[in-house]
């Protein structure tokens, strides 16, 4: 993956941290629903990550064990590496990578976990209140729409600037169909995607 070299000032790190603090509060139904907004911010608006770095961060986190939110750590890690001149640039770049990881992970975790900790007991005690029920039920269709949009943005992010590759769209569509209609283990699907990519189908 070709990295790019960027310059990150203190106020840039602060803006990145602030953006993740905000996204944390917006990440109803999981951090994955904020992926489109992260793409808008990191790739399109600031150019701190390449498209390839962005989608590989998500793909590696999907393939690895652990909660999916760890893709956020990889995004911060990659921003830090870019700021340090790439992974080959030595310990300085690695340190910046860890710093970036810390900025994004603390940002995405701190507000939501604090809020969850405080609100869980209250919400549990008041789960029959009209306001609590209206919020829980009212957000349901919004969350569904967000998940489908996230899948779309991720699938589209794999396409480079040239002509749209229908092979990639086909693979995304088939994966959607298989997950929707069958109980095949996700790891088999990711493996099949990796294989198809490695032999040059997509």
């Amino acid at each position: 993956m070709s990295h790019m070299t960027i310059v990150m000032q203190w106020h840039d790190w602060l803006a990145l941290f602030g953006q993740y603090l905000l996204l944390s509060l917006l990440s109803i139904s999981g951090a994955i629903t904020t992926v489109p907004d992260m793409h808008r911010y990191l790739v399109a608006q600031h150019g701190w990550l390449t498209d390839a770095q962005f989608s590989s961060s998500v793909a590696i986190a999907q393939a690895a064990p652990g909660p999916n939110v760890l893709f956020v750590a990889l995004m911060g890690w990659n921003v830090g590496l870019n700021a340090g001149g790439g992974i080959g640039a030595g310990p300085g770049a690695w340190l910046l990578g860890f710093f970036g990881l810390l900025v994004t992970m603390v940002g995405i975790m701190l507000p939501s976990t604090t809020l969850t900790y405080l609100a869980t007991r209250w919400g549990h005690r008041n789960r029959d209140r009209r306001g609590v029920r209206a919020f829980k039920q009212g957000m349901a269709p919004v969350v569904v729409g967000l998940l489908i949009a996230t899948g779309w943005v991720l699938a589209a992010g794999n396409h480079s600037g040239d002509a749209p590759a229908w092979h990639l769209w086909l693979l995304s569509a088939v994966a959607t169909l298989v997950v929707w209609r069958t109980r095949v283990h996700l790891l088999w699907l990711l493996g099949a995607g990796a294989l198809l990519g490695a032999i040059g189908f997509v």
Partner: protein
Amino acid sequence: MHPSPSGAAAPSDPPQPKSPRDLFVSFTWLALQGFGGVLAIVQREMVEKKRWLTPEQFLEDWAVAQVMPGPNVVNLALMIGDRYFGLRGGIAAVAGMLAIPLVVILMLAVLYAHYAGNPQVAGALRGMGAVSGGLIAATGIKLIPQLRKHPLGFAACLVFVALVFGAIALLKIPLGWVLLAVGGVACAWTWRRIAP
């Protein structure tokens, strides 16, 4: 790996974590099994194997974890840990969920960066990226039938789904505005509909 043999506890003595350390180890073990998402593993380990939660408790906790902002499984870990050992337990469970998997994922990323110039590796990751887009879209599609029981009615729900999809995926409007506008209308309308 498991401090207590599962199924050995007496029925009068409901199984529960022994200490924050037990929580940390249990959630680390759980997270390391969760390829492509941890939720299914949480259900199997917490409800079926360790029996720290009844199925009813699990459903209730899961609903709350999902409505709150933040990663769902992390919220769930926080809630379970907090129930037994307060804030200390919550932190131990969340740290277990994240610490070791974070090390694993960084090693994978470094390995990947090393081989990224290789066209097969780049292609493999592109293929996996296309698949993971499909996985997430399918997660959303699977939830659509649940909207049939929604107080707003199925058709109105589908309109909200389409509005959010169009605003985020096609028009690329920032998430905050979409949540505020579409989510606000959906919640307010639901509030009116469920009037006693």
